[in-house]
């Protein structure tokens, strides 16, 4: 199958490959998998003191479209608040990468990975005894 130029670009030069320490309190980790193709995706966000995502990393075992989708979203989430990151939809990803219908599940995987990473981060900060900023994050989730 022919990949679009944007998919090839992300596939050949993936952005932000790597990992953060998953136990770091400023890090949120999302792990998702697509049974249909056996793809596994790990996406991590590092949240700054201002509540914005300052960095993101990913590791994906899967096809070119899955790698490109995760590479793209790590670029997109940087500088966003958690709520803004949650607004990224798989259709945005599929459109940007010009994914064919059979590869839409790769973009769904990337969207679910961000959601899982944000949920993981919020869970870490969901303590009533946390700092005011953490309490705000907990309220936002509730």
């Amino acid at each position, binding site marked *: 199958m022919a990949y679009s130029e944007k998919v090839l670009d992300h596939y050949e030069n993936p952005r932000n490959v790597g990992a953060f320490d998953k136990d770091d309190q400023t890090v949120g980790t999302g*792990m*998702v998998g697509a*049974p249909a193709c056996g793809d596994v995706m*790990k996406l991590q966000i590092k949240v700054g003191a201002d509540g914005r995502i300052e960095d993101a990393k990913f590791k994906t075992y899967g096809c070119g479209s899955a790698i490109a989708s995760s590479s793209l979203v790590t670029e997109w989430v940087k500088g966003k608040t958690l709520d803004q990151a949650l607004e990224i939809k798989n259709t945005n990803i599929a459109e940007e990468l010009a994914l064919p219908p059979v590869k839409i599940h790769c973009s769904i995987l990337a969207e679910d990975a961000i959601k899982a990473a944000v949920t993981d981060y919020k869970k870490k900060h969901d303590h009533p005894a946390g700092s005011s900023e953490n309490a705000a994050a907990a309220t936002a989730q509730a």
Partner: protein
Amino acid sequence: MSTDFSQDFFALFGLTPNFHLDPLALETAYHDLQTRVHPDKFAHLPDADKRVSMQWATRINEAYRTLKSPLARAQYLLHLRGVDTATESNTTMPSEFLIEQMEWREAVDEARVAEDADELEKLLLRLKHQYAAAIEEIERDLDKSHDYPAAAAAVRRLMFVEKLQHDLLDAIESLES
């Protein structure tokens, strides 16, 4: 033929709709049916009859392929029971399972890069145990406890194991060539 197209694949072969299946019974029923609908037998009949025989032959082949593969058989049984395995849309696998899958992929990648054929064979052997365990679980869920959601989850896990097995065999083959 007295049978109709709305029959499920198990009924078509006269088999009990269980996950556990006698491979020999399937082979026998398949060859028996195949002989009965062979196009040669319909060569002297009108085109309409020939078309029906072709449709039967296609359906019998599809039924055979579905029931022969444990994964396809499990998915088909769940489909008959009205359970969607959601293999396209369900991405929330248990996190321990996904972490383990990541580790598997990393191990396979490392062994492939290092061209370590022994390590690849060892991984394949370990994976075969996982495969067998998944099959056992599916059989328990489908035939004994009738816990279909649990069976669907086990089917999704088995799909990852099959993909890994495929990648491992590819890696081993590329080292041998």
